[in-house]
């Protein structure tokens, strides 16, 4: 379905995950973050860059992998994105919902 955000129309799933990464830009990320009660700081951007890179390299994301990334530990990841961190971070990053259970 279509969604109007930051003055642009993007396609998203019912849960709000973007389906076309090419439509993503930083203003959309900021607006998505605001919808999820998150204000993006440079630390958030380091995490978003990391998960976008993992996605581009076809690496499945999990909480455990984030913890071993060297970018952020699990505790800080939950501080940066307090509610459902992996889902919220991937949503803001414009990539599909992770399917991991761990």
């Amino acid at each position, binding site marked *: 379905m279509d969604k109007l955000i930051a003055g642009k129309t993007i396609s998203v799933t019912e849960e709000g995950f973007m389906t076309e990464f090419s439509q993503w830009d930083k203003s959309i990320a900021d607006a998505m973050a605001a919808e999820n009660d998150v204000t993006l700081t440079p630390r958030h951007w380091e995490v978003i860059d990391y998960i976008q890179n993992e996605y581009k390299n076809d690496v499945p994301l999990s909480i*455990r992998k984030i*913890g071993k990334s060297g970018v952020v530990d*699990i505790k800080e990841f*939950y501080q940066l994105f307090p509610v459902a961190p992996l889902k919220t971070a991937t949503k803001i990053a414009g990539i599909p919902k992770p399917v991991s259970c*761990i």
Partner: protein
Amino acid sequence: MEDSGKINKMMIILSKATLENVYACFVLANGARMEGIEAEIFFTFFGLEAIHNKKLDHLHIATVGNPAMHMPTLLGGLPGMEALATSMMKKEMERIDMPDVREFLEILTASGVKLWACKLAMDMFHYKEEDMFEDLDGVLTVGDFYKQGSGVGTHMLFI
């Protein structure tokens, strides 16, 4: 808060320390946090072994009394059989990116899951708090645990 039917908190009671039960408990608790749901675990009876520092790295799966293993009971009871089945299962777990018990406990506490030991069972097994996993949140009575679970949208699960 109004009851919208939404799950806000999972209170999971772990009473067994066979590997398959411990993992079920940990995956459910971690999965709750991943969805923005609070989670607390109450370790009671043999479940305490999953947070006992000297035991938690050596938990086994049950080869006896477990029909889903499809192994005759007599065979499952042979010396070394549990260890063999456990090492096979551990290999599969590593393949699907499942952490070992200690690392999983660290992930749970970093994710904000509260870990409680049951006072009665601690007394029964003569365990002391210093014998247990260092990030344990405390030792509780059943009454304390119920109090922890108060609020709208709390669900309790016994494993």
